[in-house]
C-alpha cells in the first residue's frame, strides 16, 4: 500500500466542520469516487468532525489518499485530546447519546464507509479512522 498524498485540517469550531466536509468532498473527487460513495463519505466526515468539535473539545482531521493493488482509497483520521469515551459498546449503540443528539453519528458513520476504527480511552482522547475505497 502506497500513500499518494496526505495532509491535515483543524477541527475546532463550527466553520471547521464545514471545511472538513468541503476538503473531503474535494479529495474524494480527486480519487474518482462515485457520487453515491462520495456522499456517504462526506456525511460520515460531518458526523465525526462534529463529534471531535463537540465532545472532543476540538482536534484535527488527517487525510491520506492511498493506492493499493489498483484501487484508490481515502483514509481520514479524526483525533482529539478530549475526555475519551468511557464505554465504547454503549457509544456504538444506535440511538445512544450523552448530549442531545440522535445518537447515530458513530454507528451511522461506520455503516457509511468500508473501514472503521475507534481508538479511545478515558482521559486519553479519541481517534476515529475511516476508509472508503473506490
Amino acid at each position, binding site marked *: 500500500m502506497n500513500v499518494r498524498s496526505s495532509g491535515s485540517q483543524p477541527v475546532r469550531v*463550527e466553520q471547521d466542520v*464545514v471545511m472538513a*466536509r468541503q476538503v473531503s*468532498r474535494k479529495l474524494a473527487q480527486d480519487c474518482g469516487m462515485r*457520487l*453515491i460513495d462520495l*456522499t*456517504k463519505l*462526506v*456525511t460520515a466526515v*460531518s*458526523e465525526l468532525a*462534529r463529534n471531535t468539535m463537540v465532545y472532543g473539545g476540538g482536534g484535527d482531521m488527517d487525510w491520506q489518499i492511498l493506492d493499493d493493488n489498483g484501487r484508490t482509497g481515502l483514509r481520514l483520521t479524526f483525533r482529539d485530546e478530549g475526555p475519551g469515551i468511557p464505554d465504547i459498546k454503549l457509544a456504538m449503540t*444506535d440511538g445512544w447519546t450523552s448530549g442531545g*443528539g*440522535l445518537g*447515530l*453519528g458513530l*454507528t*451511522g458513520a461506520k*455503516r*457509511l464507509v468500508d473501514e472503521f476504527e475507534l481508538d479511545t480511552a478515558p482521559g486519553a482522547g479519541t481517534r476515529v479512522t475511516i476508509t472508503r475505497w473506490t
Partner: protein
Amino acid sequence: MAALGQHAVSKVKNAESQLVQEWIAALEASGGTRNVKGDELKADTREFLQLITSSLENGAGTAIGAAQWEDTRQFLERLSRNRAQMGQDSSQTANFIFALKGPFFALLQKEFASEPQLLAEQLLQASELFDALGLHTIRTYQASREAVIRRQQEELLELSTPVVKLWDGVLALPMIGTLDSQRTQVVMESLLQRIVDTGSEIAIIDITGVPTVDTLVAQHLLKTVTAIRLMGADCIISGVRPQIAQTIVHLGLDLQGVVTKANLADALALAMRRLGVTFTKAQ
C-alpha cells in the same frame, strides 16, 4: 503620578500645529488614511491632541480608565466605530494613535536633550500612555467590527430563507447551503409564521440545495415537521436525491412517516392531489 510633567505638556501645546503636520505625514506614509477625507483627518488629529493635552494638564496619569480620560476614550470609541464602518482594519485604525508616537517622542527628545534622566522618564510615561490608548482603540474597533458582522449575518439569514406560496394552501421552503443550527432555527420560525398567516394546509421543505444531510440536519428537519404537524398542517420533504436517500438509510434515521419526494414537482403534484385539485391539458 501624572503621565507627563507640566513642562512637557506646555511644550506639546505650543508645538501643536507642527505635531499635527508631522503626525498626518506619518499616517499617510503608513497608509492609515485610506478613505479618510483630508479635512476630517486634520480635525480628528487636532481634537485628539487637544483632548490629551487638557487631560494631562489636569494631572491625568497613564491609567486611561480614570475619569480624566473619559472624553478621550469617547473620542476614540467614536473614531473606531467610524473607521470600522469605513472598512479599515484594526491595525490601520490603531495606527491613528501609534503614528503620533514618532513626532511626539522627537519633540520630547528635543526639549529635554539636556536632562537625560527626565527625558527617559517622560518617554516611558508617554509610551505607556500611547500603548494604553492604542489598545483601547483596538478593543473598541473589534467590538464595532463584530457588531457590523453580526448585522450582516442577520441580514443574510433573512435573505436566505424565502417562504414561497406555490398554490392556495401550499407553501414551499427551499433550503440552500449549510444548515447550521442558527439558520435552521430562523427558517423554521419563518415557515411556521407563514403557515399561520396564510392558513396553509401543506408545507413542502425542499432540500435540493442542501449538499449533506447528516444526523444534525435530520434532527432539525424532524423538529420542524413535528411543529408543522402540531399546527394541524401536513409536511412533505422534497429534493431527496437517490444518494441522499441511501445515506439516510445507512445512518439509520427514522423519518417518522414523513413523506419524501425526489423533486419539488413531484411534491407539488402530491400536494395538489391531497387538496383535490386536478389538472387537465387544454385541447
